[in-house]
């Protein structure tokens, strides 16, 4: 079977993708960890002793991990386990929404650039170039000071600096797809270009779109953690791991629990997501397998 361009339309293909993915041990571990985290995030109110902003334990400030407070208590009397667990919600929310918004910027631009070539392609590629040349973190910092911090702004800004990979992937795919017989046939019977593009070509470019999406998520989470670490990310008291690490850094000599737990959770999340992304890429697109 020619598996050069797998679309995940049929159940067959999903099964085959899974079979391929299944062989990837790291990807499987990542999937397990992320499922556990999603589970914990959904049932956060049930498994945590307090809300993320409740200063319930003012008489136990900076307490070390114990049986009643698994991850200890922070400097303003909040249960740290609650904050870390609610942090999963924030991180995953930022990651996935950013990726989706980036998708809505990157896919149309990439598709148009790939299909129409010429000046459209030139313009889009220059835009991609400009955004890729300047380090995304610096652009994000500039944008944050311009638009202000806060969850919504951060998501929007992160999407603005992370759509380029998806755009490139889609462009490349459309460039090859449009030379296919069915595309030429559609053109020959007089189907309008936009209809060919959005009805015939894009559905077949699902594989690179999903790969781009999945790889975008850990990147967005990492950038959010970096911005929050610098103190210009999500506003307190919303629990963000980057911010918690940054605040805990002052006390790292003594109150080690304030930095260690969010750091471990952040590392696990980002790493698991990128293992899943790598595994999925290998499973869905054998063409890309050698090229990582």
């Amino acid at each position, binding site marked *: 079977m020619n598996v050069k361009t797998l679309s995940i339309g049929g159940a067959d293909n999903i099964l085959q993708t899974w079979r391929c993915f299944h062989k990837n041990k790291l990807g499987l571990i990542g999937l397990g960890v992320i499922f556990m985290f999603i589970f914990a995030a959904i049932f956060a109110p049930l498994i945590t002793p307090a809300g993320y902003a409740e200063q319930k334990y003012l008489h136990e400030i900076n307490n070390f991990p114990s049986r009643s407070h698994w991850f200890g208590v922070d400097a303003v009397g909040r249960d740290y386990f609650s904050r870390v667990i609610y942090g999963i919600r924030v991180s995953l929310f930022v990651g996935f929404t950013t990726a989706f918004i980036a998708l809505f910027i990157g896919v149309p631009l990439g598709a148009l650039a790939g299909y129409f070539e010429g000046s459209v392609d030139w313009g889009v590629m220059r835009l991609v170039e*400009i955004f890729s040349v*300047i380090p995304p973190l610096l652009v994000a910092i500039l944008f944050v000071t*311009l638009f202000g911090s806060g969850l919504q702004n951060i998501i929007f800004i992160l999407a603005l600096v992370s759509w380029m990979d998806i755009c490139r992937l889609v462009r490349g795919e459309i460039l090859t797809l449009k030379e296919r017989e069915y595309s030429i046939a559609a053109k020959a019977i007089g189907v309008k270009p936009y209809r060919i593009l959005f009805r015939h070509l894009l559905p077949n470019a699902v594989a690179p779109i999903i790969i781009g999406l999945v790889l975008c998520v*850990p990147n967005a989470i990492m950038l959010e953690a970096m911005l929050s670490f610098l103190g210009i990310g999500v506003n307190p008291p919303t629990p963000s791991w980057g911010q918690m690490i940054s605040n805990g850094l002052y006390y*790292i000599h003594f109150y*080690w629990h304030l930095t260690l737990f969010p750091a471990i959770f952040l590392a696990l999340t980002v790493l698991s997501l*990128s293992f899943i992304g*790598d595994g999925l890429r290998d499973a869905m697109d054998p063409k890309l397998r050698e090229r990582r």
Partner: protein
Amino acid sequence: MATYIIKRIFSCLVSLIIVTIIIFSMMHSIPGGPFDEEKMPLSPAAKEKILKMYGLDKPLYVQYLKYMWNALHLRFGKSYQSPGEEMVDLIKRTLRVSAFLGGLGLAWAIPIGLLSGIISAIKPNSFVDYLCTALASYTISVPVYVSSIFMVFIFSLGFNWFPTGGFGGPKTWVMPIIAYGLFPSGILARYTRSSMLEILNEPYILTAKSKGLPMWRVITHHAFRNALIPILTIMLPMFTGIMTGSIFVEKIFRIPGLGGYFVTSIYKRDYPLEMTLMLFIIVSLALTYLVIDIFYTIIDPRVRLWRKGR
């Protein structure tokens, strides 16, 4: 070749001007100024005088043209944050620290990254390959400050081998140097692996092997040389990356380098410093990409960019 390079430099200049205009206008459209009430309580008359002294009362395009004109003559003015010294001295003083630690970081990252990439490519899907790929994934996806914190926990708080931060003596240099090199080594390993894998499948590698050449010679002389081109594209910008990458490493280890100024200059509306840093990064990146393009044509005669008229 010459016309190609001239064309390339010209388009480089155009995008440089566009990017600087964008950054300059963005910088100034951020609400608030460097001498606002909460930063410096001044009487209106005194504030006006200061604004006039720094030329901030002029229209934006005049400020931009004036800045760029001065920058062309390498006069960058003075930072509002440290008015006691020339900008060039400030950058020299801090960049020396960043470049020292960052350079040593790259000094271990480049050989390790290349080597682990080559080894993974020679034995794909082996245990060593999985280990190298997993480690590379770790350094690429986990923010460097998280790894730095883990190092602090293990080596400073656990074994008490190195101090947690500061900048004085070789003992304080070790962890920052490791941290600086993490991301570059991972990304190099990943690119080297993919680039080598592609080339090891080429027919001329089979030819070289069937001629009876020893394996190491095939790899060093036939495969790696050709794999080097895509690797160079990501390796050269790393030297610029030292400057921006230092933001986190220097914050964690409390190093008096350039990194912190990227953030504080934007925060304190320190326009001259911010603009100079951005200019510095953009110019060095542009130069790097120019060098890469020229390198391409030298290393690989198949790439004749100037014929495509790009």
